[in-house]
């Protein structure tokens, strides 16, 4: 496929991620760092780290909530960590899901936490899918060059 067509698809996809709230301004900051030429591949590197981190943390939270006695302090630490990393890459919907999680673990509400984890997990999966589409388009564009 023509590189111009692919670039248009990529731009439209990224724009839709912003419109749908998957991304916020912090992602634009990371893009600008990459675009200034000093760090090619920077966005892919950072997002890759985030996706690995997030997958691990979501898994850890699930294990914690599955215990007979839930350690809500550890749940707090996990959610705090994920909120931080999602904020740093501009993954807004994941970040917001983490914020919504807080009240449940502060109340030591296990059922509420399980519900919040389901929401968080869905937001993470959707965010990841969107990032994967973005990177696939970038790879196709690079292949055309």
């Amino acid at each position: 496929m023509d590189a111009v067509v692919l670039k248009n698809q990529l731009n439209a996809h990224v724009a839709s991620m912003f419109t749908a709230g998957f991304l916020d301004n912090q992602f634009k900051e990371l893009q600008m760092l990459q675009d200034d030429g000093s760090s090619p591949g920077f966005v892919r590197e950072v997002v890759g780290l985030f996706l690995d981190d997030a997958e691990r943390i979501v898994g850890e939270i699930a294990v914690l909530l599955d215990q007979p006695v839930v350690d809500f302090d550890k749940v707090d630490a996990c959610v705090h960590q994920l909120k931080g990393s999602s904020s740093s890459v501009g993954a807004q919907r994941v970040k917001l899901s983490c914020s919504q999680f807080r009240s449940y673990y502060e109340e030591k509400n296990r059922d509420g936490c399980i519900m919040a984890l389901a929401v968080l997990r869905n937001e993470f999966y959707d965010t990841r899918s969107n990032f994967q589409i973005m990177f696939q388009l970038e790879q196709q564009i690079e292949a055309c060059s």
Partner: protein
Amino acid sequence: MSSVAGGGVVGAAAPASGGAPLHVLAVDDSSVDRAVISGILRSSRFRVTAVDSGKRALELLGSENNVGMIITDYWMPEMTGYELLKKVKESSKLKQIPVVIMSSENVPTRISRCLEEGAEDFLVKPVRPSDVSRVFNRVLH
């Protein structure tokens, strides 16, 4: 960019103004945040070493004499950024190194405690290139 033991990342940068680039030590237990702060610092032409704990930061500071600035996350397991700040300021060898604290939480008592202990500034995450430029320009000039 190459990796060193302990989760460190070294990035070389072009000289800032005819001399060697300033060597900044970035400390954060989050691999994502280490990558982000390293990217921001590299784009500003600093030389960066990134480590994942206060303990590794102190090890590096003990073995290298050329660290010109430390930027550290506040909330880390085992040794917080505040505890690292205190150790740096208590050391006759290290106390002149400017230290900047980063945190995802905007807690006034935390901020004032760090500034009272000698931190140059306190950045609320997510850290942006403009934050780093503002702080580093002020501290280094």
